[in-house]
């Protein structure tokens, strides 16, 4: 149909008996395995999407535990060693009245990852059976998770920069802690989890709650 049409006569590639390329948007007959225009693999719906979403999510969740227990930074100042975890670092910043920076780290390292775990798990579990939720809302949730997820990496970069800059032998030095590696991996895994999700599943369930 033409784009100037109305919402009620929208037709999906699958309903038209076709398969769409999610990489370039080309619509082809279902026997096409790789896209003639961009060579991507063509699948009407990604195989085992929900299972892969949950597998990556679990990996990310498991790594988020040591990311919070072990230190992100080990600061040596005048022969004194001090370890700081993610939450410990935020508390120190608040103590020093660095509220804006404290808020940025708290949002990037705690709120966003935890929010992501909840939203992805919710979407994956909801879409594995019939439901009556408004697809527009679910779509916004998924888009938000895909857009915001990568910003969790901020604290890893902060650690990298501090480690590179603060190297004054006995006066002060900063070393990265185990949590930095765990946290970086956790972010990577949850990004893969969000990417494994096939957003077309959100729209497959009709307003009556029965999958087509």
């Amino acid at each position, binding site marked *: 149909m033409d*784009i100037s049409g109305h919402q009620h006569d929208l037709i999906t590639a699958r309903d038209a008996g076709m398969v769409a390329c999610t990489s370039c948007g080309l619509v*082809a007959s279902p026997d096409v395995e790789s896209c003639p225009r961009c060579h991507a693999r063509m699948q009407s719906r990604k195989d085992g999407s929900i299972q892969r979403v949950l597998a990556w999510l679990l990996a990310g969740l498991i790594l988020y535990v040591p990311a919070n227990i072990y230190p992100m930074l080990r600061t040596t100042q005048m022969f004194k060693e001090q370890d700081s975890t993610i939450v410990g670092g935020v508390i120190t910043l608040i103590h020093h009245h660095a509220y804006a920076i404290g808020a940025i780290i708290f949002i990037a390292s705690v709120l966003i990852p935890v929010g992501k775990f909840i939203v992805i798990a919710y979407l994956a579990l909801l879409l594995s059976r019939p439901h009556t939720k408004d697809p527009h809302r679910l779509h916004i949730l998924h888009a938000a998770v895909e857009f915001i997820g990568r910003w969790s990496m901020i604290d890893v970069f902060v650690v990298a920069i501090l480690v590179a800059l603060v190297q004054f032998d006995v006066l002060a030095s900063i070393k990265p802690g185990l949590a930095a590696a765990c946290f970086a991996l956790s972010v990577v895994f949850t990004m893969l989890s969000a990417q494994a999700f096939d957003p077309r599943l959100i729209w497959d369930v009709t307003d009556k709650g029965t999958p087509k």
Partner: protein
Amino acid sequence: MIYDSTCIACPHCDVVYRLSAARMVTRTRCLRCGYQLTLGKSEAIARVVGLALTSTILMGIVLFAPFLHLNAGPFASSASVADVVLGFATGIMMPLAFAVLIFIIVVPVARSLLLIYALAPLLTGHANASGAQSSLRWAFVLKPWAMAEIFMVGVAVALVKIGGMATVHTGTAFWAFVLLVVVNTFQDTFMCRNTLWTSLATNTT
């Protein structure tokens, strides 16, 4: 194998649209989910290639020029982006160094080179390079893994954290990096999937 090159499907909700030639050059959103099907920018290819060249050059400056200088009493240090990456490169932190290297240098450079390789022949009137399709596809796939702008926010946070114990001066590479982030953001506004893929597919020279 049948396909219709005047039709495109929304990658988010699978709705199919037939785009008229007029629609291809304006901004179009999916009627159901709001996904931007076309960005409607003229000269998208020339700009994407030009900006990719610019960001490759800027990355060269970023790598080899000093990034930040630090003074704390009698002590002074300066760090380039290479130092930031190598700061992690010991023992168990090796994978982390590797990850930082990939997110802030390798992926952004790779994306620029892939875009130039795939799209430059369209500008010079040559036939598509072999593997142009896969190159352009990978440039899109790598998009979320290029984290230059996130690194920049990390730099800002780190500067405030250090502020108390030392004075920090920004080096040439710092400003080149800021410019790089601006160039990349600007480039994204021209990365219209429909325009780029149609141009590549219809290049018959």
